[in-house]
């Protein structure tokens, strides 16, 4: 079993010590250093490079994302395993973008942390299940985004229909029991969303979408 050298980068001493104690249980793991900031980490790396860096994303003044980017450039043999309290997809995607191979959450258990370190040390990817779920949900939404059609909300469709039926702003306001200013805002929003220049454009769009088809008026 190959020994895996590890550096823990996290700005909370209590946490660092806890993780160290945990990892030192495993004969395979050898913690060669602890860093409380990106600067400390980079300084440490000039002396000795580990197999894996356990990287906290939010280290107060320091930024784990930038540090990861730097490490992957300067020391490509050093793998980075992100360890964070943040489970939002924005952070996950960013870390992966800059070259982290794995992402686990801080409330993970010893077994999972060990498995993650081993996997990442071998150059493979590892995500805890919650992280995977977040990523999938994120990708799902990205794919769902309609590239051609801009979705209009029910209210916007209603207003567009009225505009195309030649109601004036005050008339629309009266009909829907809203203020004239609101109608005006809707109109501007529609123009902006649909990338049109004026009312004529709105009417054309409405007709094309078949919004006036069932009008009896």
């Amino acid at each position, binding site marked *: 079993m190959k020994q895996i050298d590890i550096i823990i980068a996290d700005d909370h001493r209590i946490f660092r010590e*806890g993780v160290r104690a945990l990892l030192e249980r495993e004969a395979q793991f050898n913690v060669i250093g602890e860093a409380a900031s990106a600067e400390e980490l980079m300084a440490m790396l000039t002396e000795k490079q580990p197999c894996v860096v356990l990287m906290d994303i939010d280290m107060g003044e320091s930024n784990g994302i930038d540090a990861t980017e730097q490490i992957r450039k300067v020391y490509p043999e050093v793998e980075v395993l992100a360890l964070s309290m943040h489970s939002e997809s924005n*952070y996950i995607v960013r870390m992966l973008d800059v070259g982290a191979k794995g992402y686990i959450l801080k409330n993970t258990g*010893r077994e999972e942390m060990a498995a993650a370190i081993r996997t990442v040390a071998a150059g493979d990817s590892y995500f805890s299940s919650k992280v995977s779920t977040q990523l999938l949900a994120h990708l799902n939404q990205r794919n769902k985004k309609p590239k051609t059609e801009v979705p209009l909300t029910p209210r916007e469709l209603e207003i567009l229909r009225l505009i195309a039926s030649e109601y004036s702003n005050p008339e629309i306001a009266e009909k829907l*029991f*809203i203020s004239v200013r609101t109608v005006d*805002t809707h109109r501007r*929003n529609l123009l902006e969303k649909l990338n049109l220049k004026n009312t004529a454009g709105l009417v054309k769009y409405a007709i094309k979408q078949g919004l006036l088809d069932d009008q009896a008026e």
Partner: protein
Amino acid sequence: MSDRNVNDPLVSVLDAIVQQAPYGIITIDQQGSIQIANQTLLNQLAIEQSLPEVKGKQVLDLVQKPVELRQKLRSCLKRRRFKFNIKKQVFGSSIYAIRGRKVLDSMLITIEDMTEHHRSQERALLALSEGQEQERRRIARDLHDDIGPVLSAIRILVEDMHEQIGEEGLRNLPGSDQTLLLLDQAASDIRQLSHDLMPKVLEDFGLERALEQYCQRLRGKGKLDVVFLSTISTEIDHEVALGVYRMAQELMRNSFKHAQAKTMHVQLIGHADTLVLQVEDDGQGFDLQAMREKDGGIGLENVRYRAASLGGNFELDAKPGQGVWCLIEVPYKLNEA
């Protein structure tokens, strides 16, 4: 200035009073012809003609803008009801309060400059918001730095202890199966709390991403579909971004909790100088009055104040059975007043 006896000294005094009044004054007869006016009003409405030129002319010929005032004047003259009140008329870089009322057989219109009043209100609200945000930031940091890591460390220790005790031993310890679960729950709650107090996502990734993330979180709760759309391409002042995020949170939380909706539409639309946040759901709407009575409607009032403090406005339409629609419009940059 009037058809009466110009030699009467009282007339001159009255005339001087009108001319020197610290607000705009104009009276028109019931056909819309201008009788009395002062220079202040001409300046306020950017009317180029001089006082003598204006007298006797049709008010609608001379007052083209602001549009809302013109509409009110036209409506009053048409319906012969000579009373109106525009609480906040934005015109150019000023804000006016315009009132029209019947005086004898004429209509008297006064225009009061409220710009400084609104600006200082905005400043006060902004200062209040900033104070709140600083507090929140501090508390969030403390939660994140002091309690968060301790919980994580405890978790590690407890898991360790469990391994030492072994399965046999654990079976004899009542509640031992709960410990890890409770710790995870506490950690999750603290994270949530900390995030709500200071959304780091906003600082790190900007308003669009932060909102998108929040939508995703609501989707994750499983009860409703949240559609998010953004067309913003301009940079936003940080205070504005934070303010809009907070307002969005409040509005979306409201919808989520009360509306029993199936779909929520959240939009960020970028216009030339302002951005619009629109939140719409297809739920059962709510009775504003009833809501105010229940929890003081504090949340929505906060949104209104917040929007005002950023120099913007807030509209809400929430009739029972017809879902909720609300809109906030604010300038990208804070007023440097």
